[in-house]
């Protein structure tokens, strides 16, 4: 079996399995961890606590200026990433062939490249911020850098492989995407799922007190 066959076949299935099982395991860890029963009398304003799951998508008024960099580049990266994943022609063709068996509307390749550049730039700005700002430099782990750099490499190789004329580039891109899937459940990329329980816990806690968190 050649490298291309390995990446297209067994490694693809293995990476998807690790991703699915790993994510499920991380979520299950929260579900099976001991939960504390709340005994305090509920405030009359308790409804709406879970609204924090949605309200935290935007910074609070008091924090807008201070967090403009992280939110601005963060939003640009996340939104463009989802657009690329969901509407990139090559991606949709891949999903049709390998997962779903059907396709949907895609964006033209020139737009894909433009969005890719924006996404790449946003992630680069976030990575530079992480490495250069004293606060994030102090907080960040090797895993944080690894995850960011891995995504950058996936995007870079994806753009290079887009016209699918160079088979090695396609294989490299898919291989990096598979490494990303394998890494995903073990690092902070899991925030893509875990923001929901975290926001819900906090929203409920403050919501019981009548505070919109």
């Amino acid at each position, binding site marked *: 079996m050649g490298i291309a066959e390995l990446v297209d076949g067994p490694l693809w299935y293995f990476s998807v399995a690790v991703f699915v099982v790993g994510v499920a395991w*991380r979520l299950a*860890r*929260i*579900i099976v*961890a*001991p*939960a*504390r*029963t*709340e*005994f*305090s*009398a509920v*405030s009359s*304003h308790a409804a709406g606590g879970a609204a*924090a*799951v949605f309200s*935290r998508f935007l*910074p*609070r*008024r*008091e*924090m807008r200026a*201070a*967090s403009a960099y*992280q*939110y601005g580049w*963060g939003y640009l990266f996340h939104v463009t990433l989802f657009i690329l994943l969901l509407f990139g022609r090559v991606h949709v063709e891949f999903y049709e062939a390998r997962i779903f068996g059907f396709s949907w509307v895609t964006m033209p390749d020139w737009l894909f490249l433009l969005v890719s550049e924006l996404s790449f730039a946003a992630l680069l700005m976030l990575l530079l911020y992480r490495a250069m*700002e*004293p*606060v*994030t*430099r*102090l*907080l*960040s*782990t090797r*895993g*944080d850098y690894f995850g960011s750099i891995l995504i950058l490499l996936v995007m870079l190789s994806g753009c290079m492989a887009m016209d699918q004329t160079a088979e090695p580039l396609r294989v490299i891109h898919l291989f990096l995407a598979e490494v990303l899937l394998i890494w995903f459940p*073990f690092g*902070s990329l*899991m*925030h893509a799922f*875990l*923001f929901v*329980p*975290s*926001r*819900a*816990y*906090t*929203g409920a*806690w*403050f919501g*019981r*007190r*009548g*505070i*919109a*968190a």
Partner: protein
Amino acid sequence: MNKVPETTSFEKGVDAMKAQIDARVVSYLSSCVRCGVCADACLFYTETEDPRYTPIYKTEPIRKVFEHEYSFWGKLGARLGLKRPLQESDLADWETLVYDGCSMCSRCSMVCPVGIDIAYVIRKVKEGLAAAGYCPDDLVHAAERAIQIGSPMGVTAATLRATLRAQEKECGLPIPLDVEEAEYLCLLSSGEIAGYPEFIGSLAKILDHAGVSWTLSSEYFEATNSGVQLGSTPLARQLVERIVDVAEKLGVKTVIMPECGHAYSTLRWDAPNMLGRALPFGVVHVLELLETLYADGRISIDAGTDARLTYHDPCNISRRGGVVDAPRRLLGALAPNFVEMREHGAMNWCCGGGGGVSANSRAEPLRRRVFAVKKRQLDELGADMLVTACSNCRNMLADGLEDHEMNTELIGLTELVAENLVSDEAGSVPPVNPSA
């Protein structure tokens, strides 16, 4: 580093932190993306620009325990020597970060993009530090006095009685003590008894005006909880049990928590969880009671001050307590020139002395430095009068105003209400004279 010999044990600290790792903490420790947004919500960071004061960084000890004990990469990394597990020296380092550089104000918890209640996790770190004996001597001694004497400041029942006699003279009313089957039991903070006894006379005047059945207790009168400030749930539980015992013995329906922030949030929200059962009585903050009495027409208050007046929200009463609207309704009636600071209510800036910082003399220089944020808020507003509802905040604000030679008048909201009570028939009720 201040080690308490009888409790020092690194393993105890680690075990205590492990015991705190429930579903909520697992979710929080797993979801942080280390974006650093929380830094700008913390006055200890904004006023020092020292990244070590970043709120989430203060949770590092429990994150390390979690990673080492429960995560695949943490276990593997430790075995391969790639990851350094928590060490005793870390506890010494984080003792100063957590006890001196965090007022547990929870402002960071309001801004985390992934929703981590960072103050909740810092509180869990405190459990470990306290269990290991890495906590400030001042807080340890305060907790010892609270357990042995019943007051972290050493205020005794005799001191209380003397204070009540003085306040009875000031307000011209008898102050009920140890009355069984009263509707309300009012607790006091030692800080009020020692520093702001006029709160008691003011409350007596208001409750007498409203015809409320109430009492104080000489057996146990302390509202504050040194166990919470230290970070020790076993100690906190002991102190809560004393309140429950005396309230049950007197047969009261509701306990009034005085102008003290953490005392209210502890009894109202945390105590039932410490005990594992609902409290057999209601808990109300004095501002909630005053606002209810006002809304029900049982007290009338006059717009008695023309001062440009603002309100400092005590974090544990507003953000962590949920009492945001009641003081504003009262102030709306009392002061036509009531103005809000730009950041107020659930996003107020802390006075800098919460979470035991005010009781920790080692933290005083830092605490005075971070007051700069409150000074900026007040300067921006140009207020003549600053009102608050927590004796600890009041002490911190008084210190800060003095340090910066500011002429802003400082007063407790309960006193302001008492000063502006209006009798239905005979005009204004005579004001309570502060016994400074």
